[in-house]
């Protein structure tokens, strides 16, 4: 006989805290190493610090959206499991379908909190096994991929730079294209495009201020400012359009 089960039990919270501590330690380890290496390479301390501050500020809004993912899943799975899944490898785009798929397989509804530990463990296994390749493959493929990149760069440095820039642009293009997916739904489907344009416009203004008015400090916050500005715009415009 096992212990009495509850989706928000102390035991599950303890597991979650263990995972969180692991992630924090690993991140801190890499942060400190990279910072020290940057100084060894003669990079300015200011530049390294700016990277940290700028990223930290920019991360807050997306982190809150991940928190919303935890809240969404918590009605069904309790807090600890979604918290664990969103702290390691997870993404709401993956976790929700994984939980839904298992719930369907077991013939249970997603609207009630799980009370059967075997259902819970089945979902935990699907969520875990589903994302396993993303964590197992990097160490296996790293040498091959990085070796390939070194080959490209040593053969033709200019093409090596273009190669990496193009990869990033390919990624950005996929997301920019996605914004147009709802256009055929009428004016409400244009909201994401307006949001995109507002974000782009704010970023443009930030760029001008940085260059023309010498507001160098703004560089650190430009992406965060344009993102949050565009999100506020979305809140204002959506009720008007619907």
């Amino acid at each position, binding site marked *: 006989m096992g212990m009495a089960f509850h989706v928000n039990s102390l035991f599950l919270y303890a597991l979650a805290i263990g995972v*969180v501590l692991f992630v924090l330690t690993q991140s801190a380890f890499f942060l400190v190493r990279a910072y020290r*290496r940057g100084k060894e390479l003669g990079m300015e301390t200011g530049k390294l610090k700016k990277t940290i501050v700028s990223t930290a500020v920019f991360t807050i809004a997306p982190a809150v959206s991940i928190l919303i993912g935890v809240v969404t899943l918590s009605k069904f799975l309790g807090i600890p499991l979604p918290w664990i899944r969103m702290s390691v490898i997870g993404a709401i785009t993956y976790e929700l379908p994984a939980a839904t798929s298992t719930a369907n397989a077991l013939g249970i509804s997603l609207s009630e909190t799980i009370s059967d530990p075997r259902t*819970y463990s089945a979902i935990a296994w699907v969520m875990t096994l589903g994302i396993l390749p993303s964590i197992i493959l990097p160490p296996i493929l790293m040498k091959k991929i990085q070796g390939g990149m070194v080959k490209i760069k040593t053969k033709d440095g200019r093409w090596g730079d273009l190669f990496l820039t193009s990869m*990033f642009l*390919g990624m950005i293009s996929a997301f920019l294209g996605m914004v147009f997916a709802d256009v055929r739904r009428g004016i409400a489907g244009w909201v994401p495009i307006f949001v995109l344009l507002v974000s782009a416009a704010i970023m443009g203004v930030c760029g001008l201020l940085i260059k023309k008015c010498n507001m160098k400090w703004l560089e650190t916050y430009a992406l965060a400012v344009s993102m949050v500005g565009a999100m506020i715009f979305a809140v204002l415009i959506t009720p008007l359009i619907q």
Partner: protein
Amino acid sequence: MSQYMKDTDKYGKIWIWTAVVAVLMVPVAVCLYYNAWPQAGAVLKGLLGVAPIYWTVGVIEVITYTPMLGTGGTYLAFVTGNLTSLKAPSALNAMENADVKPGTEEGEVISTLAIATCSIVTTLVLVLGVCGLTLIAPILNSPVLVPAFDNILPALFGGLAVVYVSKNWKLAISPLIFMVLLFLAVPSLAGSVGVLVPVGVLIALAAARIMYKKGWV
């Protein structure tokens, strides 16, 4: 390869394999503690619904993002997750602002700093959020805020695109046109944007190669 890069690979591997064990221990611990091993059939059926897509995406993501994020960044980003929507854009923005190139050791340093900071801040926001969930859940769930978070990706990529696309518009134009037309033609693809990132990358690379050979870039 410098000693730093060699060590990064060594430590990265140690951390990531430890993470594999830690991640697997979560369901094992649940099963042992509650003496609740699930039916294999239920797990298999559940996996069947997601694994074919997610395993494919997993393979593609590793191949696509590793060159962009660098060794340390990759080892960290794949453990902490939220790659496309957070880690990759933040690394790109940081390298752009610091004026360093991906694939160089300076790029490696900045990318790792950005991804580590991103992971720490995300984890801390989740900790704070979970602690105060009863207080903030009503705010987060309020209908007023729904559009803000529904539109977080356009809000993020709009700003990012201005900088990156305007600097490299010749390289950007082919994948951009392709993607816009694709999503206009097949709107339902929006749910599988992760799969389309490598498609965009391949198109961008092919177009870049042609333009490079012709001397246009």
